[in-house]
């Protein structure tokens, strides 16, 4: 779906901005919001470029740089930290051969830290796109990643 089709689904009101941004990002193919998209959205919604850019860069779920097909969000908030979520990050870094915050060269994965995902009863936990993973350990990480790599 192109960006004009997405925008036209909504009333041209500022309060629909976050919804539009979510959808533009999801359908971008690279989980990001391009500069061109920001320009089009601001023109269509009659908002300034700086307003839309300001919103995109404020919220941690949005990105202005290209990311992988799969966004891995590892919860690093206090409860998961207590359960050594750092080990999960290290395992993922080793598995994917990237550092946290980076994207794999095949554009399959981006590894990110996240604040509380509401999975504290299953800590350490993470999400890959919309799917939740709890009670994580190193062996599971290898398995999850290899399943998604195929």
């Amino acid at each position: 779906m192109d960006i004009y089709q997405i925008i036209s689904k909504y009333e041209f009101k500022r309060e629909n901005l976050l919804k539009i941004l979510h959808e533009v990002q999801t359908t971008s193919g690279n989980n990001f919001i391009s500069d061109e998209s920001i320009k089009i959205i601001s023109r269509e919604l009659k908002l300034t470029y700086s307003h839309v850019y300001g919103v995109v860069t404020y919220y941690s779920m949005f990105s202005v740089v290209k990311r992988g097909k799969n966004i891995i969000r590892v919860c690093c908030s206090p409860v998961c930290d207590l359960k050594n979520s750092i080990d999960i990050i290290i395992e993922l870094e080793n598995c994917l051969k990237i550092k946290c915050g980076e994207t794999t060269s095949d554009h399959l994965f981006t590894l990110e830290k996240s604040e509380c995902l509401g999975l504290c009863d299953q800590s350490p936990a993470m999400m890959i796109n919309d799917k939740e993973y709890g009670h994580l350990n190193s062996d599971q990480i290898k398995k999850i990643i290899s399943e998604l790599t195929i």
Partner: protein
Amino acid sequence: MNKQHTIISPFLKHEDGDNISSYIESGGFQGLKSALMLSPSKIIDLITESGLRGRGGAGFPTGVKWKYASQPRSEIKYVICNADEGEPGTFKDKLIMEKAPYLFIEGMVIAAYAIGASKGYIYIRGEYSKSISAIQKAISEMYNHGLLGESIAGNSFVFDLEIMLGAGSYLCGEELTLIESLEGKRGYPRIKPPFPAEKGLFLKPTLVNNVETLANVPFIIQSGPDAYRKFGTEKSAGTKLFCISGDVEKPGCFEASLGISLRELIYDFAGGIKNNGTPGAFLTGGAAGTFIPPSLIDIRMDYDTLQMNNATLGSGAIIVLDNTKSIYNFLGSILRFFKHESCGKCVPCRIGCYNLLKIWEQCKDHPECYPDLEKEAAYIAKTSLCPLGQSPILSIKSALHHFKHSI
């Protein structure tokens, strides 16, 4: 006290909680039907008499909030459900939204009728995918069943409901910041007053209630304030969903009457300390919460008892640390959280939260720096617009007070 009795939990056990027919079969929407036969002011009286207090963290009396929002300031009013649950250690609203979406939406429709709003929004955090789909389904089913939109349940009352998505900002859980975000802006706090009940969304009177608060409403309307007051204490009526995580055998979300002891929650509900360990500390209320030492394990978990002990109930999160865990490290984890989530609008909070982490690092080898940590946090609290800046002092102060020699 009857700790076994529950109000919300029975709805959380349904396998098909997103199915409107099974909700109706289990008595769903009876509260709404009863409410539509009462006058709005009568409903507000019932909520006020029930003693229900906001379950999002602040504990403000819900009836007072509704009464204030019901005043005829404008033809247009809004109801917002704050579903932006992000307080570390809190996952109760997620559970309600996934397992019992109709329950809190029913409460929301009752709230809208009581204050005279014809439009509502559920503002939910973008990461909660499961909750988002459950709510989307629930809203569309309710429209199909004539429980949203024009002439609700055959009455002349009109109420439209829409879901709005956050995108990863803890601060948007604060009601005025949430409103800014809902208007399609950066999540910066507003100066208050005016409060949302006067000038909220699009500067119109707005009622903002948490998911769990609204989930209590159908029971209160249907069974009456006296039935609700059978649970809890005089000043903290009803039940609460407590989220217990960390070093316990069975982490999870448990409903209990307010005023239950911390010991009962930890040992009777959460299965005790993991591996038969010894408790080291409890953090109540999440990152914006307070440390409680094991010596206070018999403390009653209600708003006022906790406040008298310089502690907070907050969102109902209880994070348990066994005695092998470092309180110093855990405090660092809390401070990193605030540094990440400070929005940057108020300079003392933006620079201060960064600075807290620097001082915390120094404290490791120089415990004499701890007073500086407390001083900096107190300064941020005094000079910040919103509750985020007012929060780091809580954990720092309580940690230094209770664990002066062991931190």
